[in-house]
């Protein structure tokens, strides 16, 4: 009997306007279809992050919401850093990706301090970067999604990029990098939500989480035909 996989969704209420909650739905379903037990925790302002989490996910919110959680996130900093260092799988999209970096400078010039788990810095730029995006991740293949951000994110020396952009912009106009990775922490600008049409990536994350727990199990193949078709068609859509 496997102990339930613990999925922590950070700020589901504050950081929720771009559909990234779908990432939680996808992880939950892909576990449950395979009979792997799980338990989800919705962790908002003032609530604690369970120290034995297997998955931590977070999404995009409005710039104002980002300022609103800044202080609370710093209260959670030591737990989240410990989890990240120990290889817990984390998927942070857009606003939460920025806050997992060192800092985020808003359009008004205000600097919001981030967790510094990812060695990246973000500065809000002229105009938003909006549109369909396709990128490729080594050993995982193509990832499709949608980006909508004003921040330009620059990778520091210690950061690994998450993906390489095939079409779209990604982190910043200069270069062709998308997102960042540290151990099993993934930061990305890709909505869609990212796991919804990229089942190979979703399963990749699930494998990482199970391996870390020492659970040896080969993931049962699912009928992803509808999902794959949605992935293929998304690649053909205009920017």
């Amino acid at each position, binding site marked *: 009997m496997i102990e339930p996989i613990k999925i922590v969704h950070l700020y*589901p*209420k504050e950081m*929720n*306007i*771009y*559909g*990234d*909650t*779908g990432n939680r*739905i*996808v992880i939950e*379903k892909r576990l449950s279809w395979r009979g792997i037990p799980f338990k989800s925790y*919705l962790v908002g302002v003032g609530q604690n992050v369970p120290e034995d989490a297997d998955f931590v996910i977070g999404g995009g919110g*409005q*710039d*104002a919401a980002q300022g609103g959680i800044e202080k609370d996130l710093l209260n959670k900093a030591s737990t989240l850093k410990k989890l990240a260092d120990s290889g817990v799988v984390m998927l942070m999209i857009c606003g939460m990706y920025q806050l997992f970096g060192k800092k985020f400078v808003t359009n008004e010039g205000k600097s919001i301090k981030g967790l510094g788990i990812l060695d990246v810095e973000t500065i809000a730029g002229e105009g*938003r970067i*909006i*549109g*369909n995006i396709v990128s490729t991740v080594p050993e995982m293949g193509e990832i499709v999604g*949608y980006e*909508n951000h*004003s921040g330009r994110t620059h990778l520091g020396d210690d950061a690994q990029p998450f993906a390489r952009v095939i079409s779209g912009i990604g982190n910043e106009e200069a270069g062709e990098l998308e997102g960042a990775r540290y151990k099993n922490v993934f930061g990305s600008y890709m*909505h*869609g*939500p990212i796991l*919804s*049409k990229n089942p190979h990536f979703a399963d990749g994350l699930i494998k990482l989480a199970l391996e870390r727990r020492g659970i040896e199990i080969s993931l049962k193949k699912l009928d992803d035909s*509808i*999902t794959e*078709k*949605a992935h293929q*068609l*998304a690649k053909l*859509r*205009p*920017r």
Partner: protein
Amino acid sequence: MRHLITIWVCKLVYWFLRRTGRHGAALPGLIAEKMDPKLINRLQKLPEGLIVITGTNGKTTTTHLVAEVLKKMGKRVFTNHSGSNMTRGILSSIVRNSKLNGRLPYDVAVLELDEAYAAKLSPILKPKASILTNVLRDQLDRFGEIDYTAKLLMRLAANTTDLVVYNACDPRLVYTPKNTKAKTISYGYVQNLAKNFPVDDNWHSEKVTAVPQTDYSLAAISASKIGLLAKNNKMVVDRSKLPGVHNALNLSGVIALINELYPESKVDFGNLKPPYGRGEEITVGDRTYILQLVKNPAGFSVAMGVEPNLPALIIINDSIADSRDVSWLWDVDVEQLSKRHALETSGTRAYDMANRLRYSDIGVSNIDVDIKNSIQHFVKHYERGVIFLTYTAMLQTRKIMQKLSRERRRK
């Protein structure tokens, strides 16, 4: 004089276009915009002025209902139809409907403007009255953020001269009245109806937001009637042709506006019908289908309650006018759809919708990106049904269904 010349030139262009077999409204509108952008001012100078309606959801229905009620009251109403809610569309309509002596033969104008245009044009338009329906997540790929959208609505309120009617149960509109000299009147619903109207702030929480007391408050909703507390007077209004709880709220805003602008009026608010695509019924032979426009999570989640057991066809397109981004489908509470007898999906993002349903363990019996094929399949298999669709899908679907309907009649 400038007005007059613009009108003549544009009318000439119209005449020329028609003679050469074209129906473009864009070119005369463009010319009018270049020659005389202030032509739009004529609307506020009509005897009973201009009413502007904006907000994320419900503006087309609200505009249509206000115009219908004013017509019932015997007024000549200038109004724009959805899709032409931008400057050029309005200008071209002004030019087309002006007399050769430049007179615009209407008593009152009712305009639907999207949030950005409402903000941009309101300092010029100076409307007499406005209705702010709500600020919900929609078109984020265009406006970026919801809080920004709320600011756009505030600008319209600030430039309205006599009356601002606003949905105070929307958490982003609670503060509206402060920045305007116009009289402000709120509408909304009583606390125990709040669960029917999801707002973005409590989207992923169990919480139901506490709603403020409003001047016009929806107190009871049934399929055929609404109960309204209008400044504490009870009103019961027939709404049997306006399906969905969202339309009950739209109707409340309309009643608030008309009662405040025309307190002596005894107009009957019953029997009003929705504009096309917003709960409109379309028949093909002896078969009837309801078309329900969907464009954001809150709107879709509420609209799902329309005829909750009938088969449904969901058509999701991703043109600019629909929203290129379809991430929003993941914030729709799709579980309600599992009660339906059958589900089919179509549109450029047919597979995205089917995929969304897959992840809620809801099966789909037909997936086809081709809208025409899908509609033929749906009409063939089901005598009645609801078609949920995005904006461009609605335009295509209406054409296809009208054609099907004509073909049936010929047989």
